[in-house]
């Protein structure tokens, strides 16, 4: 047994940290969050150059062929930097879905483009009903003239306004079990009837869209995976993306802990650094416990994904349940221990606080995942 990172993984961490400290400092994050693009062409090209846009894709598709444990390291560093932009949506939602469910031709067409930075993608899955289960998929795909016609509204779709390709989750059949009849379709940017609206978000580093599909016609070749049988692949993609998100949350939480302890060492009140007081010390210790626990569960889930371990779905839900609570609590405590300065726009803490909140509700919150854990342990 070896439950730790390898030397190569530690090197990746060091490289990513240095890169992001230089290229994705607070000023960059703040500038990007004010703009719809969320990133710059230059920054995106550099991510591609580092090999990170294709980190988990096979080499035959222009990727590096690394696993989710490697990815976790990178995600932690991205979370630490509250990195804005369509990395997650492109690499871990749109791209990963194509990798998981796409035909050879679809993979060959899109994955190298994603890995090289030439294309962006996303997954249009959730709807106004805000459900994470198969029953939440009500957008319809009707067969017509050898192709399909998609109709419905997608909500909370990350970076749809930037995506060259949207993988749309739609229902091709009404069946007794909602998992059956779910299909995936590749819809290119600018398709007729496709209406993408960028929504104002509390976490401005994450861009979310409403995606209207008004009789969007696509050819049969746009089908990703088997007709009506896409749910298992989609579930796998979402589980993996969930674990990657947990990695990002751990990185953000770790950074909040560091910012807070550093501040507690220098901020003087009543003649002493506030970190001298137990009221501060004990909260800081709780923060450390929360972040370390979240890491343990996340690393395990990443390993389980790489190994296709039978407990992988359970591991992913345990990690997300824990990380959702932990990051939220940590970010809140971080602000509290900073006092007034922590509540200002100028200080970076609110970026983490807001990211914690948006992450909490992405792919299901702690309550959702605890119920999933209950089911998976046969309660």
């Amino acid at each position: 047994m070896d439950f730790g990172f390898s030397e190569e993984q530690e090197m990746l961490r060091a490289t990513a940290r240095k890169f992001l400290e230089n290229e994705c400092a607070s000023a960059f994050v703040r500038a990007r969050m004010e703009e719809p693009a969320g990133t710059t062409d230059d920054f995106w090209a550099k991510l591609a150059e580092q090999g990170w846009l294709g980190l988990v894709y096979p080499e035959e598709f222009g990727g590096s062929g690394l696993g989710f444990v490697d990815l976790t390291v990178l995600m932690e560093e991205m979370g630490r930097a509250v990195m804005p932009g369509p990395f997650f949506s492109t690499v871990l939602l749109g791209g990963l879905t194509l990798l998981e469910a796409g035909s050879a031709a679809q993979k060959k067409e899109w994955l190298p483009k994603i890995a090289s930075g030439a294309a962006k993608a996303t997954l249009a899955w959730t709807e106004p009903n805000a459900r994470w289960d198969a029953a939440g998929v009500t957008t319809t795909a009707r067969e017509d003239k050898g192709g399909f016609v998609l109709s419905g509204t997608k909500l909370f779709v990350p970076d749809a306004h930037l995506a060259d390709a949207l993988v749309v989750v739609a229902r091709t059949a009404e069946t007794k079990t909602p998992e059956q009849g779910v299909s995936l379709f590749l819809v290119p940017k600018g398709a007729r009837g496709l209406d993408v609206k960028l929504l104002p978000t509390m976490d401005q580093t994450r861009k979310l869209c409403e995606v209207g599909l008004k009789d969007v016609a696509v050819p049969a070749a746009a089908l990703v995976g088997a007709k009506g049988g896409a749910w298992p692949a989609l579930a796998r993609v979402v589980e993996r993306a969930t674990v990657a998100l947990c990695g990002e949350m751990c990185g953000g939480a770790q950074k909040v802990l560091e910012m807070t302890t550093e501040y507690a060492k220098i901020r003087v009140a009543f003649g002493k650094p506030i970190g001298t007081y137990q009221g501060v010390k004990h909260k800081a210790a709780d923060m450390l416990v929360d972040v370390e626990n979240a890491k343990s569960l996340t690393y395990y889930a990443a390993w389980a994904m790489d190994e296709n371990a039978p407990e992988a779905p359970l591991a992913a839900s345990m990690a997300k349940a824990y990380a959702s609570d932990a990051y939220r609590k940590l970010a809140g405590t971080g602000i509290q221990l900073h006092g007034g300065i922590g509540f200002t726009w100028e200080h970076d803490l609110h970026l983490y606080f807001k990211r914690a909140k948006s992450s909490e509700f992405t792919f299901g919150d702690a309550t959702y995942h605890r119920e999933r854990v209950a089911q998976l342990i046969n309660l």
Partner: protein
Amino acid sequence: MDFSLTPEQDAFRQTVRAWLKANLPREWKDLGRSDIPRIETYEILKQWQRKLYDAGFIGLTWPKEYGGRGLTFMEELILQEEIALAKAPPILNVLGVGMAGPTIFAYGTEAQKKRYPPKILSCEEIWCQGYSEPNAGSDLASLQTRAVKDGEYWIINGQKVWTSFAQIADWMMLLARTDPNLPRHKGITYFLLDMKLPGITVKPLRHMTGDADFNEVFFDNVRVHASQVLGGVNQGWQVGITTLMYERLTLGFGLHMRLRIALDSLLELARRMEKSGRVLTHDPLVRQKLAQSWIDTECLRLTGARGITRLLRGEMPGPEASAGKMVWVETHQKLQELAMELEGPYAQLAKGSDWAVDGGAWQHAFLRSRANSIEGGTTEIQKNIIAERVLGLPKD
């Protein structure tokens, strides 16, 4: 990252599993609490530990020449996992195995290392820990039990308190002040104290469960030979701290596994108890709480695995390890509270009532769990340690 076992480790697991299946004491009716040994079970537990020892399933990581097996923490982990799966009894000489032995290896003379560890493992000699005093608990360095040199001997006077197992112990890990003129951390010495020496009085203290398994220990001119010093005169603070470090590390394994046993029993309880006419596992709030308990328990296992990995790699334990005891306590106390919640009004009934759930075992475990956040370093002290040593916050 790799959670797989080598073929040798896997074979070891099979051997342990088969042995446990064949050798579990029949009289041990485990109802699945994370049990700390109770007085009425001492005799069974003593025989059980002896059996484990004869089979070579205790002291796995201890050096061979001192009665151990010279194996790695990995085998220890496998053993503990199997013990949990089999719901086997805990070991009686837990302080000897978890604390005294490792500390003697770290600081003992060759003679001490030969003399004590094997009998710790075989349970021929039971150990207790003489640290806390009426006026020195969390602030351990203020301890006042005195040791005054008299020729080849030290004369001990003073009092210890909350001393578990003192009533059956053969030996005590004793911290006493040997030089009151030195700064308080520096004038302390660690003694290996024979509990049969004249002048030692053990008075059982009854605690809130009604059991009397911890004690007051009084020293009245107890003469201890100088050869019983461990780690040098006035070096006791360092030695004592090492003991606590081992306590947190090695007891941690076992404690987690007992938590696992308790959790399994808790899920079992939820499946058969009803509330407002429906089985508890159908209650969404109960499901949330049980799932959280599961997650927290798994989390302890995994955080432990990260710590073990560091040890196996020859590194120092990282920040994740320092919180182990405190997190275990929190998880365990929450679990016991949840057990009471699941029982509902039945939570009021204790051992002796035919109506008591599982013979009242949960009630005892629930009450006993209150001590967890006090014994072995209070949660508040643990948090200070984490804040100061791991996060580098300033000392007061």
